[in-house]
């Protein structure tokens, strides 16, 4: 085997196998090793909704894609350069996306008659013209793994479970990555089962050694991908769910409030419940409620009592919380509502990503019920956005909808650790016992923010009653007066609209402030849009990228900014929701670019839409 090492700027590797093959683990460990080398990276865990789908089926295929490079990486990559397919079903479902000429690593040991049948192959594709376009490395990984772990005395089934580590070893060799962090991790994870730890380490080493010594049937080069140029500092990888949970905890600290999370298990939002439940050291209280409604109601009860109520779910769960959200709007209590969006409608695509809950976030309640909506754009960004959501909630006494999605929730990226001491506190002050002869009015407003007084139980003299019935603007008592309802409705809107004066002006991410075409996005489409605009601009096209973080209210300069472009293109993983909101608010001819496949956009698709728009 040639030991020549080719230096690459970036590469996309996709691990695909059966749900039980451990592909998510393989991918995340490859990610760890890659991150520690300082490469830029973006990951995409792509797995089925079934926990253990029938073995060998195409719908049971679980995949993990990583794009890494010696530069900043913003997307998971349009087409893998390397596809690892652990069984025929994984090949069947992933081959079409592999770059022509790309490397295909196959476990030929799993290409049995039965598995081929399950994947819908009549004949074994290995060695046929079907794979002619690729550099195929077909190895009996199953057999090689069994040999590698033989001495540890595992049963056949358990021994075969080390296949993923063997494969990982080979890939680490191929991309010149270190094994040590993974060996450390295996020894820690299986500290109580040394036999399993040793077997996995042996498989990992064997896979690596195989690359080093074996005569492969095709000439495979080794690759080297260096570190990206990043800002100096301490880094780690982070998933969206982690960063969001930490941001909520940080927001609670900055506000000086106890965080109480009410949540109910739902894909892909559950990791936030899990992460915060493991943060008792920071005093976080979590409550796994009996349902989505109880989850938000408990958060509202906690906020009424002077804690920071938070609830986290995905679209279907947010739908159930809707009535309670109205209560929080009506009683003007701070609650952070996190929506990790997934494919809809109804149960939809639980494990696939989409951003189709924007209408639900902005409009989806009975009555005129405005609330601020803010969206994250990448895993690392979640930390800051969560803090901002908490800040808005407590400063304006309002529920805030924080939109993230299944992609961001599970994806990982390198994250420069923030200087927590440099974050500006926004300590909450509760209403105090009124002076003798004065009466407490829970709906007395701050003249600047229009936020109401936050009086909490346990404090003498601020006793009050609130509820979902309309309240008198003057006293906070029940009021059915027509003019009062008009005034309260106007006030609720004015309060939320006024937040536009308290958020940064809309910036242009790439390109000029005026021009021919603005590509406008929000949420996790940031990466593909950014790369597509970069490529278009490199080709000399007049295009700018505007990424909107604050979706309600919009930054106050957004209208003027958008009107400075001849055309506006809005790529979204929905049927055109931001496009409609922009048209409604600004009467501009925003054009949609929609994809609802449950997958992130490809750069090339956005790029061709940009070209089409500019040549139209």
């Amino acid at each position, binding site marked *: 085997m040639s030991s020549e090492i080719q230096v690459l700027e970036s590469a996309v590797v996709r691990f695909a196998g059966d749900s039980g093959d451990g592909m998510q683990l393989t991918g995340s460990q490859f990610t760890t090793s890659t*991150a*520690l*080398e*300082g490469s830029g990276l973006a990951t995409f865990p792509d797995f089925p909704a079934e926990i253990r789908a029938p073995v060998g089926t195409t719908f049971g295929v679980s995949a993990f894609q990583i794009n890494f490079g010696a530069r900043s990486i913003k997307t998971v990559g349009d087409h893998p350069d390397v596809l690892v397919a652990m069984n025929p079903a994984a090949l069947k479902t992933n081959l079409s996306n592999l770059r022509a000429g790309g490397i295909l690593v196959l476990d030929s040991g799993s290409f049995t008659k039965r598995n081929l049948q399950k994947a819908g192959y009549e004949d074994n594709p290995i060695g046929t013209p079907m794979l002619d376009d690729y550099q195929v490395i077909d190895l009996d990984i199953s057999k090689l793994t069994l040999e590698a772990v033989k001495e540890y005395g595992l049963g056949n089934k358990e021994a075969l479970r080390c296949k993923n580590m063997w494969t990982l070893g080979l890939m680490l060799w191929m991309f010149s990555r270190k094994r040590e*962090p993974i060996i450390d991790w295996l020894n820690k994870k299986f500290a109580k089962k040394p036999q399993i730890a040793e077997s996995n380490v042996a498989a990992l080493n064997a896979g690596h050694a195989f690359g080093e010594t074996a005569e492969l049937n095709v000439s495979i080069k080794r690759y080297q991908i260096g570190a990206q140029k*990043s800002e*100096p*500092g*301490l*880094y*780690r990888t982070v998933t969206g769910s982690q960063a969001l949970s*930490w941001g909520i*905890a940080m927001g609670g600290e900055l506000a000086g409030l*106890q965080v*109480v999370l*009410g949540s109910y298990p739902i894909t892909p939002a559950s990791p936030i419940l899990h992460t915060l439940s493991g*943060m*008792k*050291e*920071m005093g*976080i*209280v979590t*409550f796994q*409620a*009996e349902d989505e*409604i*109880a*989850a938000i*109601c*408990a*958060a*509202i*009860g*906690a*906020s*009424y*009592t*002077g*804690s920071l*109520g938070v609830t986290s779910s995905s679209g279907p769960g947010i739908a159930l919380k809707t009535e*309670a959200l109205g*209560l929080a709007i009506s009683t003007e209590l701070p609650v952070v509502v996190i929506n990790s969006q997934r494919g809809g409608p109804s149960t939809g695509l639980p494990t696939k990503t989409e951003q189709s809950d924007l209408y639900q976030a902005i409009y989806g309640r009975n009555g005129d019920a405005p609330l601020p909506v803010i969206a994250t754009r990448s895993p690392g960004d979640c930390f800051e956005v969560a803090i901002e959501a908490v800040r808005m909630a407590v400063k304006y006494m309002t529920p805030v909808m924080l939109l993230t999605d299944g992609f961001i929730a599970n994806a990982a990226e390198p994250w*420069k*650790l*923030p200087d*927590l001491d440099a974050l500006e506190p926004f300590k909450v002050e509760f209403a105090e016992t009124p002076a003798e002869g004065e009466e407490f009015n829970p709906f007395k407003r701050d003249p600047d923010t229009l936020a109401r007084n936050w009086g909490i*139980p*346990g*404090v*003498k003299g*601020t*006793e*009050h*009653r*609130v*509820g*979902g*019935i309309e309240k008198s603007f003057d006293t906070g*008592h*029940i009021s059915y007066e027509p003019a009062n309802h008009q005034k309260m409705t106007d006030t609720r809107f004015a309060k939320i609209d006024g937040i536009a004066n308290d958020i940064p002006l809309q910036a242009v991410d790439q390109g000029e402030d005026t021009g021919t075409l603005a590509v406008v996005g929000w949420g996790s489409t940031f990466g593909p849009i950014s790369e597509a605009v970069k490529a278009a601009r490199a080709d000399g096209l007049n295009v700018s990228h505007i990424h909107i973080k604050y979706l309600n209210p919009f930054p106050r300069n957004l209208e003027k900014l958008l009107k400075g472009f001849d055309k506006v293109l809005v790529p979204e993983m929905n049927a055109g929701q931001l496009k409609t909101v922009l048209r409604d608010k600004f009467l501009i001819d925003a054009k949609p670019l929609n994809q609802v496949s449950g997958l992130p956009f490809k750069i090339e698709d956005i790029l061709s839409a940009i070209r089409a728009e500019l040549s139209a």
Partner: protein
Amino acid sequence: MNEMTAPAQKLTIKDFTSDQEVRWCPGCGDYAILKCMQRTLPDMGATPENTVFISGIGCSSRFPYYMSTYGFHTIHGRAPAVATGVKLANPDLDVWLVTGDGDGLSIGGNHLMHVLRRDVDINILLFNNKIYGLTKGQYSPTSDPGTRAPSTPQGSIDAPLNPIAFALGSGARFAARTVDTAQKHMPGVFTRAHGFKGASFVEILQNCIVYNDATWAGVTDKSVAADAQLLLESGEKMIFGSEGNKGIRFNAASFALEVVTIGEDGITEDDILVHDETNLQLARMLAELGGQEGEPMAMGVIYAVPADTTYEHAVIDQVNEYKGKRSLRDMIYSGQTWTVE
């Protein structure tokens, strides 16, 4: 309930009465319950600032507006969940939950079940008038079969729910029953509920004068009350009746409680069961008592067995066991990190 610092000066009914005009129908049973609560709270040592009334939707759920304590009129059926959040945020508060047969057992049945099984330390008052009042008279989950209402002009079909049986089935550790007009009986039940550490469930037979008038007349009318109600006292024999000669006996053959008359068929006082509020099997039978002709309905504390701790205290204790052992910074900065020079 919780240990609160007793107010320096004895509070009175005025200290618990808000300035809001009460808007229930004239003659509604709710008035009597409200008065009883306002009157009894000072005797319990409660203070307005540490007391929170939480309700859902329905006639009974307007209750918090008339108390000068903290109050939260929430949404239909969800008061138990809001109350749970309140207690998680501040376990030291005295929280009362006011609900009805529709709010608590229909739309909010799920939450009621879970707040009871979790044993959150709140006092739940379920006003049972066997009808939806605020929506103008539809039948409810406790309505008698055959109830003619706007939505059931030919009579309702479904079987009713027994609130106490529901509560015990959900794992409630305190269950009691009283009557809206029983101004002497109700304060004692409220006081016991308040004193109980854990979720206390109180069913109040309440009259809706407009849509279901006299639905409880067969139990609560002065002329029949003595024979139709069994006033429970733990440790006392279950004797009742206008003549004071009826009692409850356990029939081992039918495995049920039965009404017997002392002095007839050789029955003596020795045959009569002694109430034991810590006996769950007995409580379950007492919950259902009154379902058959000639049986009295059990009133008072049917079951009361506190647990070692309550839900919210257990949650907070668990948090406090770990709190402060690690900072957020340490957590974020832990794990595999690398430095870019």
